């Protein structure tokens, strides 16, 4: 009896460990967006440089990235040089300037270089909501059929880029 009682703390702890594990599992599954496997939602946005209207029809027909950023976002500062390098290596990036001001964004690209094929203004953030983002930076990989293949939250860097690159094929 006493021997069995001594195992009680262990058993209770393992049960608790099980609960934790199930909760962690939830978190892992939580990251992919509901959009993966779906087309990019319809939108009409204004281009940052020339105030032209841009719609889905204007998106590239080859695989590309949609990158949400803003001058207000600290991690975007860190991500930006890496995006510049991606652009140099020939990767198409569509930038969405999320909840930002035009003047600040233009100044930013002036100072840090422009890695984007197009930059669209999402001043109020409706497109961000349609894409289901929760913050910036956030990046979506879109394939040649215009279908979202992968979603990444947080900055892109040397470590996580290889994973994204595979989805870009």
């Amino acid at each position: 009896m006493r021997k069995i009682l001594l195992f009680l703390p262990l058993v209770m702890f393992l049960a608790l460990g099980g609960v934790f594990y199930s909760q962690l599992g939830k978190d892992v599954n939580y990251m992919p967006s509901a959009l993966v496997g779906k087309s990019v939602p319809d939108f009409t946005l204004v281009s940052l440089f020339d105030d032209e209207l841009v719609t889905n029809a204007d998106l590239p027909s080859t695989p590309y990235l949609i990158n949400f950023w803003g001058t207000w976002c600290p991690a975007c500062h860190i991500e930006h040089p890496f995006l510049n390098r991606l652009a140099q290596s020939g990767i198409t990036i569509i930038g969405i300037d999320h909840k930002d001001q035009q003047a600040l964004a233009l100044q930013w690209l002036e100072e840090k270089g422009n890695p984007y094929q197009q930059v669209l203004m999402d001043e109020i953030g409706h497109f961000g909501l349609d894409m289901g983002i929760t913050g910036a930076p956030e990046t979506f990989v879109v394939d040649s059929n215009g279908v979202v293949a992968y979603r990444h939250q947080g900055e892109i860097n040397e470590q996580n880029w290889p994973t994204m690159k595979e989805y870009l094929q």
Partner: protein
Amino acid sequence: MFPEVGQFSLILSLFFALLLSILPLLGYWKGNRLLLSMAQPLTLIMSLLVLVSFVALSSAFLTDDFSVLYVAQNSNSQLPIWYKFSALWGSHEGSLLLWVLILCGWCTAVALKIRTLPLEIGPVVLAVLGTVCVGFLSFLLFTSSPFVRILPDVPADGGDLNPLLQDFGLIVHPPLLYMGYVGFAVAFAFAVTALITGNLNAAWARWARPWTAASWAFLTLGITLGSWWAYYELGWGGWWFWDPVENASFMPWLAGTALLHSLAVTEKRGVFKSWTVLLAIFTFSLSLLGAFLVRSGVLTSVHSFAADPTRGVFILGLLIVLVGGSLLLYAIRAAQVRSTVSLGLTGREAWLLMNNILLTVLTLTVLLGTLYPLLFDTLGLGKISVGAPYFNSVFTPIALLLIVLMAVGPLSKWHQTPTRLLLKPCGLAAMFSFGLSAVVVYCYEFGGLAFISLAVVFWVVVLSFSDWFSKVSAGTKGIIPRARQLPRNYYGMLLAHLGIAATLVGIVLVSVNSEESMLRLSPGDTAHIAGYEFQFDQMTRVTGPNYVSSKGQFTAYQNGRVVATLFPEKRFFTTRQQVMTEAALDAGLTRDLYVSLGEQIDESAWGVRIYVKSFVRWIWLGGLLMMAGGLLAALDKRYRKRAGA
């Protein structure tokens, strides 16, 4: 260059930690003295390497090396230099490195004191600590290295430290808290060593006591500082929120308090042995659980780090190995440990047993409240939150009962206490404290709970002093020589118990005698609160190093005299685009005046919180007394004897 040195020395230290966790144990089983004697140098080398890597990271912070990802994310060239240093532990990776550094600090302390332990015990203790180090070093290296570079695309400037963390309280709060958390690893290592060697006797408890008391003191100070920080920095004037992360630090404190007391019984009477071992494991497990909750993202809180599931899985694995492993060892080995002494119903053992039961129950109720949303969600019953009222209503009665018993315990004698020794002082103290409390409550028109709580406070104070007086006045020598003869241990206990009383005074009065109001005020307006007149003089714009701020000026008058001028601020941090409230305080022993700005409502009007808080300082004053008590107990002369001396 430096970051690579840091990374490399971390890898090396992991290697030495592995050796440390294996060689001395091998030596113990084979009876090889050479292997046993390697424990001390291995510990020192491992700790030195971790220190090198910590210095490397701090130099990266101080020199604004934004090629290091972690520095780029958490620092900024505009940041004042002391925040650049403390930004090191502003986020997950660096704070984990700090954690490991402190763990190594404790290991070093044990290694340097190894001669106070028998030849075969010390190295095994170090080996167990080494295993803990292996766990945390590999967690750090494999999931969260702070030395990752972003080359060649070095950002021009960093993303800045979270404004919430740009504060003195937050510079010192994490290191102290970790000192406490991690310090319990030493008690844990002693417990596991006892299970491995089967050497569980009174001497064992004597070795473990000062380490436990010291870590308990640090944890107490850490929690006190955290509460103080929340009070002035979060801008709501609360001092405890029952937030998961606060609970994560409070649970090891409760369990550690129980451990301190049960170690005393094990040392003096040789009973509760297997229970004490279990408590030591339990206390450190709760520290680890706290680390898990804060770093895995299963619970969200004001203070938690950004969630990362892979880290969660890793630290859960670590938890399973360390806690599960030690509990398994316990289940197998504890059966051999048996205490045969029976308990008297009035002996000091019985009082301390009650202390342990109540503290364990308190720990479990906090644990349940903290994890209940998680359990609820796992069972698919929906998303819930457990509010502070749950904790308050469960915690208060049990804690009050505990404090009542706490004051009686010291009067009792080991094994059996003659009833007359207890009855007379308790009866007198009860009459006195209820009477005094009734007078206070009548004069100030407080409620029933305040009456009981204040009576408990007086009860503790009266019984503590009468116990001290009876100890110093017995015998023929004068009072002062006898007072000096009493051990530090005893004074430590006295201080800590009085600290509890002081904290209770603060808690009771701040909740029944404070006035809080949220008002809409424009410059020129005045407000009357608790006998004070607050005048909103003006608003000014101020520019700080990395923020711009709207600064209000309030003058507080009492009976027409100026008491204080207060400058609450609303700071806007430009890099992070984040707003922070800086409350303005006029601190006093019996009351705090607290003004904080809410939002600007229109051109001139602001939402303003004005509080007059009674005795709120006493909460932290009590914490300081408890810490002092813990340190005093840790420094008792009896613990410094060498093994076999």
